[in-house]
């Protein structure tokens, strides 16, 4: 029996290779969250419908030479099904090592571009969650922004490339995933920065990120400039990197905008969100390349799996940026709030340092899809 690692699946999705997924979890779990990609085809046949044999599943599987990856929650059932498919004569059948549990934690780094005077910016894509982190490097010095709970990937990457991580920044206090910022900074001896207005309740010490503050990276003096941009949280801060990139955190995404309610304050913060999007951001250069902290649809992923867009283009295409009227905007945002992410209150408490769940509990708290964006705002506009 052959296995495929989650890293290999991620690579196929990033580079747009054909992939066929047979997901054998129950229908409910599949409907909520599954592996997606531009050229991924998936079907759902629960393993418990395949206890008597896999014959009737065969006509739903591709007849060509395509790889078939059988996926379940933790691996056991996918091995059970893959073995039967192999016995039934199918050749290119794999099971996903570690199942969706491992998929949820798989992170794939992609280079976004070069910086003036030397240096690069990389996007770390946690595909199973739609979470994006960044590493900016110049002359061996690196800054990590919005690091997730799984910090090994940054340390490993820095080690391979010979970078030293000097600074670790969070754009805001996250509610959908556990921040790895503090842990990473402690491990590598870097400074950890947080916007102070999001950090009023935190139990640990940090360096406050104030508006207008600049952080230098390397001798080339790549400038990371902080821009106070509240709306998703009261402290949300964006970064302008090298006058080229706008790291927008959870305020602005490629296809949608941030939600203002995860700290329970939709009505208060929707005004801030509108002001950030329609006044603060619109005063910036339209040539800036927006690099968000999340994406929610696979269509937001461009060539080579990169998630980005020019700010000027988003003012043309992003539905959340077409509603300047305060009242219409408020209604659009508050009417389109998706269900709140799994365990988001506990996630916030953990990120404040008020809770210290075990590794297994942290993993469990992060299960399921990301829900940081206001959804289907384009549809609501048409109503």
């Amino acid at each position: 029996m052959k296995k495929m690692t989650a890293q290999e699946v991620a690579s196929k999705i990033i580079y747009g290779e054909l992939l066929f997924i047979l997901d054998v979890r129950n229908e409910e779990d599949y409907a909520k969250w599954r592996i997606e990609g531009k050229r991924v085809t998936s079907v759902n046949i629960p393993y418990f419908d395949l206890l008597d044999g896999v014959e009737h599943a065969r006509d739903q599987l591709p007849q060509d030479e395509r790889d078939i990856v059988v996926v379940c929650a933790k691996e056991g059932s996918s091995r059970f099904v893959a073995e039967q498919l192999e016995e039934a004569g199918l050749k290119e059948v794999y099971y996903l090592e570690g199942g969706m549990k491992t998929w949820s934690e798989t992170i794939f780094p992609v280079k976004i571009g070069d910086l003036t005077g030397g240096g690069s910016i990389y996007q770390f894509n946690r595909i199973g969650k739609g979470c994006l982190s960044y590493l900016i490097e110049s002359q061996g010095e690196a800054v990590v922004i919005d690091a997730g709970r799984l910090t090994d990937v940054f340390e490993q990457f820095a080690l391979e490339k010979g970078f030293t991580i000097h600074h670790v920044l969070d754009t805001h206090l996250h509610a959908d995933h556990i921040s790895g910022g503090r842990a990473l900074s402690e491990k590598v001896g870097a400074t950890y920065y947080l916007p102070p207005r999001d950090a009023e309740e935190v139990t640990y010490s940090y360096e406050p990120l104030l508006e207008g503050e600049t952080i230098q990276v390397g001798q080339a003096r790549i400038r990371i400039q902080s821009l106070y941009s509240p709306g998703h949280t009261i402290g949300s801060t964006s970064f302008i990197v090298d006058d080229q990139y706008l790291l927008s955190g959870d305020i602005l995404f490629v296809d949608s905008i941030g939600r203002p309610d995860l700290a329970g304050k939709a009505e208060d913060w929707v005004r801030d969100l509108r002001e950030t999007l329609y006044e603060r951001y619109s005063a910036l250069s339209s040539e800036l390349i927006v690099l968000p902290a999340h994406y929610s649809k696979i269509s937001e992923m461009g060539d080579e799996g990169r998630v980005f867009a020019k700010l000027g283009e988003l003012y043309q295409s992003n539905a959340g940026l077409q509603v300047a009227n305060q009242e219409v905007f408020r209604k659009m945002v508050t009417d389109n709030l998706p269900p709140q992410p799994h365990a988001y209150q506990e996630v916030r408490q953990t990120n404040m340092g008020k809770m210290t769940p075990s590794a297994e509990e942290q993993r469990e708290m992060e299960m399921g899809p990301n829900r940081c964006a206001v959804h289907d705002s384009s549809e609501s506009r048409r109503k």
Partner: protein
Amino acid sequence: MSIKVDVQLNCQGLSCPMPILRTKKAMDHMEPGQVLELQATDPGSYADIQGWAKNTGHQYLGTKQEKDVLKHYLRKAKPSEFIAEHQHPHRIENEELARLLEQKEAPLLIDVREPAEYAFGHIPGAISMPFAQLGSRLEELPKEKRIYVICRTGNRSDMAAKEFTEHGFVDVVNVVPGMSQWDGAIDSETNG
């Protein structure tokens, strides 16, 4: 609340697919109407046992949690309650076929009933190919074209659709419920 249990199955410490696999095996040896208690510690068993019960027709009664142990209760179905096993997935209803028959290009329709049934009334243009003869007559049909299969109530045509598919026919559609409910045009070979 006390529940009368006929069979207890201990799957504590096992992860999927084992709890469901063992449940299925245990149920195979039980009498219809008997109740099984499945003890599992895998939290995934909660959704999966309900999914399995729903898809097989067995009745999921409920779950009790005692500390880390989930106790799932299931009642074995009577034969009449079973969901027909693994039907051919592609099917249309009589009305849809009637609509297709009005189109310019007539659909390729195979009637798999016995010759006598066919003779007493069939849809104009339907090709007679009794189910028993199917295996020896497959060569007569194009494998890459869409084929509609019909019988009296949808059962033989379901089996025929699966047989066609197994032999490499790519697009086979079962017409349900079939001739027993057909109220469209009929040709008969007994009038003359």
